[in-house]
């Protein structure tokens, strides 16, 4: 047997590609499914046929596919051409089209500022899809986990789904029918058993690099009103506050005291009664030549009203992991976290995901399989230390060229847990920057909304005709100067076009 493929671009069959790749991927990989197709473009054969935005569909099967038998095959991908490269060299012109599947829609659109409180994950996702997503649907599957609180501030729908997936240990992907699936990991069995009979080469990488068994999560900070009272002893001039004070008001015997900032000036300004030392948390009543004696007398009540700065911080550690692999910390600072429960959920999910070393498998398969990233498979490679383990399929890479199709050596799969790469770090940096820049965005912000649209109504003069009809000396019934001539329908001569024109 061999593999057979079928490619449609804008619903027209284009199976004459030279080589091609289709990568089926899930959200965990920070990438969408994508494709690359190379065609011989002799005499510019495809130059006017392929363009940005064209829809590409790819099927695969173990028998020849025709447009009438596509239902027998497996549809690998429905995507959009996002890049077209034409390379000319001698008598060999190649046109290459690349693009993403409809996950692109999730990566191109953001979730407007919104807070979801005490809602099921699947309800949150459904709401996001109903509000923002076009061209892609959501197959609502029960997850059953309630998210206490989560805030989105113009993060892409892809990143938003990824945040939700991280919180509940789920995974998501968009299939070839443009349907988004969001399910727990290892939910759907692909039916694939990888063992010594069907694996051409295998690469297992296990690393402590991304391990974290002690996690700090810092969210946003809040100012909270606070009051402290003291009774003066008539001697001491310094009073210690419980917290670093913001917007401080000091009352002495019910009268407002005029304040200043400690060490702000060499000489205390005239009229100043107390100074605030923010970092020392001190209220210092001043005395001296300029200020006079402002030290409260014994028995006087001093009231300090100020805002204290309360942070959202959660900390957790996995002791068994620390014992096995040594302490390894992770600090997450995310100003988008506005709620302690949200911080706690994140801390727990990070510990669950990262307290053990990651194992990533890459396997080149021999044989014909129809695999979708997001499903799981079973691996039995005892010599590699993997005995009947169920691993999530993170990525399926189909490489098409004529020889590979005949040899049935087309598929490469990435299994279990993805080990981060430079692109993931860059993605994190970009996401972090967005979070910093957008930290002041709030769902209650008043938005001045402008909607722009434009379309063209092109009027075309299809043509005009000047027609004559020979009448001799007669006139026709219905004409304004009719005087007993003939009926229009009974007249012998047909109209003939004398001249015509128009723009076409």
């Amino acid at each position, binding site marked *: 047997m061999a593999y057979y493929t079928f490619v449609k671009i804008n619903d027209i069959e284009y199976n004459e590609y030279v080589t091609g790749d289709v990568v089926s991927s899930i959200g965990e990989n920070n990438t969408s499914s994508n494709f690359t197709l190379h065609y011989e473009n002799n005499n510019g054969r495809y130059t006017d046929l392929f363009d940005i935005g064209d829809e590409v569909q790819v099927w695969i099967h173990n028998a020849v596919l025709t447009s009438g038998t596509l239902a027998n095959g497996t549809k690998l991908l429905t995507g959009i051409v996002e890049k077209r490269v034409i390379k000319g060299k001698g008598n060999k012109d190649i046109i290459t089209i690349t693009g993403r599947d409809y996950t692109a829609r999730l990566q191109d659109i953001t979730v407007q500022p919104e807070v979801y409180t005490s809602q099921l994950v699947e309800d949150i996702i459904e709401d996001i899809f109903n509000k923002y997503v076009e061209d892609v649907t959501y197959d609502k599957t029960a997850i059953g986990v309630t998210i206490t609180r989560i805030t989105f501030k113009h993060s892409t729908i892809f990143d938003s789904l990824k945040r939700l997936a991280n919180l509940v240990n789920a995974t998501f992907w968009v299939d070839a029918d443009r349907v988004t699936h969001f399910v727990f990991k290892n939910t759907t069995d692909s039916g694939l058993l990888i063992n010594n009979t069907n694996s051409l080469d295998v690469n297992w990488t296990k690393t402590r690099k991304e391990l974290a068994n002690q996690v700090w999560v810092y969210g946003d900070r809040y100012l909270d009103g606070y009051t402290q009272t003291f009774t003066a002893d008539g001697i001491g001039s310094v009073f210690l506050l419980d917290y670093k004070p913001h917007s401080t008001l000091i009352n002495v015997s019910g009268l407002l005291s005029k304040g200043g900032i400690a060490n702000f000036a060499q000489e205390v300004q005239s009229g100043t009664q107390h100074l605030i030392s923010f970092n020392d948390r001190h209220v210092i009543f001043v005395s001296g030549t300029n200020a006079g004696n402002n030290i409260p007398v014994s028995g006087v009540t001093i009231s300090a009203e100020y805002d204290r700065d309360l942070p959202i911080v959660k900390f957790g550690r996995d002791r068994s992991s620390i014992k096995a692999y040594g302490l390894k910390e992770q600090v997450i600072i995310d100003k988008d976290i506005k709620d302690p429960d949200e911080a706690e959920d994140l801390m727990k999910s990070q510990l669950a995901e990262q307290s053990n070393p990651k194992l990533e498998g890459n396997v080149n398969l021999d044989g014909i399989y129809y695999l979708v990233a997001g499903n799981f498979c079973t691996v039995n490679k005892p010599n590699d230390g993997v005995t009947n383990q169920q691993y999530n399929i993170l990525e399926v890479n189909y490489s098409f060229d004529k020889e590979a199709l005949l040899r049935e050596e087309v598929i490469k799969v990435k299994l279990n847990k993805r080990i981060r790469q430079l692109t993931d770090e860059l993605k994190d940096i970009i996401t972090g920057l967005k979070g910093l820049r957008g930290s002041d965005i709030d769902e209650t912000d008043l938005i001045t909304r402008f909607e722009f649209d434009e379309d063209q*109504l092109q009027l075309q*003069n299809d043509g005009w005709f000047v027609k004559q009809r020979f009448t001799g000396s007669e006139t026709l019934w219905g*004409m304004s*100067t009719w005087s007993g001539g003939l009926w229009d329908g009974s007249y012998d001569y047909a109209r003939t076009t004398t001249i015509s*024109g128009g723009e076409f």
Partner: protein
Amino acid sequence: MPITEVGQSGVCILLAGGASYPGYMAIGSGSGVTANATGLYAELSRKIFTDTDTTTLRKITWVGDWNSFEMSGLELTEFGILTGSPGSEMWHYENLGNPITFDGTNELRIEITWEVI
């Protein structure tokens, strides 16, 4: 330019709820390189359309008829469609170049079709 700028603007205004639209066809014997905004260069006759046909999708055809008595002795060099009486807007203008002479034995029909694409 068959569809005049006045006509193009008129369509936009019509889409905005304007009440002015073509109702007349005119023939004339004048000549001009560009279309007037309000009428032919030398108008001979102006009539309400004989027929307005919109049965073909995205197309409209206006028909104007003149009988042989009306056309007798005239030289046709230009025609157009207008929204009303003289001084109204001319939405379409065509100049034939060489005149067509009517000797009283021919009637005239002019059909103008616009298409929205």
